């Protein structure tokens, strides 16, 4: 079948197939989140509500850590949502391809606009320019439906059975390991590395500031360092 003949249905399954490998990445995070949330004392309903409505591992782990530190609600929300701000960038990048979709479809597209679906779609959509908006939407939603059910299921398994895992397995450390697994592969460029180093140094140096506010200040400084390093590298190249 040539691409011109691709119907919405087959576009859906192509999206599903393209995103399926990322189930392997999402599932361990879901499992770990379920375990960590239960460990902290969230109920099964709370854990599942968060995982279904937020679908963003890094932000969910962030909220857990700050809840444990008894940070004020506003600081928790500001920090967790700041972690998710990158998705505004995804949203903007999808406009040329999906901006003409129906309003209700866009609600669904937004719900599925996670790291993996965006990453996969941002490679494929620019190649398949002959696709209709309906086909593009179907492709994106197919990707979302590949990953999200496994994300939810793995969180459930972690939450339901995590409590049965004995303390010898040091599950308190599952969360830091998950974060390392998110950060390390993301350190692709020198500005990314500088931003990460700044984040650690500034967060430790500012940890005396009450209400976990030091972290937000450290993050702001680290973002500026990353952006400035990028500018400096660009200028040096030209």
């Amino acid at each position, binding site marked *: 079948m040539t691409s011109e003949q691709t119907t919405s249905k087959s576009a859906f399954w192509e999206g599903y197939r393209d995103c399926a490998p990322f189930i392997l*990445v999402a599932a*361990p995070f879901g499992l770990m989140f379920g375990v960590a949330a239960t460990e902290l004392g*969230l109920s099964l309903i709370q854990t599942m509500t968060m995982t279904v409505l937020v679908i963003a591992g890094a932000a969910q782990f962030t909220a857990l850590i700050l*809840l444990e530190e008894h940070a004020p*609600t506003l600081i928790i929300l500001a920090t967790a949502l700041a972690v998710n*701000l990158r998705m505004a960038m995804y949203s903007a990048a999808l406009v040329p391809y999906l901006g003409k979709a129906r309003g209700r479809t866009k609600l669904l597209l937004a719900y599925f606009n996670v790291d993996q679906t965006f990453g996969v779609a941002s490679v494929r959509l620019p190649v398949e320019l002959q696709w209709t908006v309906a086909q593009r939407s179907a492709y994106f939603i197919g990707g979302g439906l590949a990953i999200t059910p496994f994300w939810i299921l793995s969180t459930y398994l972690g939450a339901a059975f995590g409590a049965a895992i004995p303390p010898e397995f040091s599950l*308190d450390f599952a969360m830091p390991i998950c974060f390392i697994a998110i950060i390390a592969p993301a350190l692709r460029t020198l500005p990314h590395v500088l931003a990460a180093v700044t984040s650690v140094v500034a967060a430790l140096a500012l940890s005396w500031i009450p209400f976990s506010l030091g972290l937000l200040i450290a993050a702001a400084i*680290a973002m500026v360092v990353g952006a400035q390093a990028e500018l400096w590298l660009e200028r040096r190249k030209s």
Partner: protein
Amino acid sequence: MTLDQTQIWIVIAGMAFGTFFIRWSFLGLLGDRELPQWALRHLRYTAVAILPGLIAPLILWPSGTGGEPDPARLLAALVAFGMGMWRKSALWAIFSGLITLYAVQYLLG
């Protein structure tokens, strides 16, 4: 430790609405308006600017040992970080980190 149930629900609701709004923002509301270069340049670094600072204290002073630095956890963090950077893979980081953690704990008794 007891957590404030109301706070948990407010955090869940706020994160749900906030995250959805961020994902929907340009697609549903702002349309073709382009993000200015300076904004993109900073947004690229949000995750790496927040997450390392958030976990550094958890690695240096883990809650599982009551805040005492722990060689098994430190080594596990280093291995996970090195493998994650080298293989550019989250899975490698998770599994190598956990294996190191359990191996060192086993060896140290």
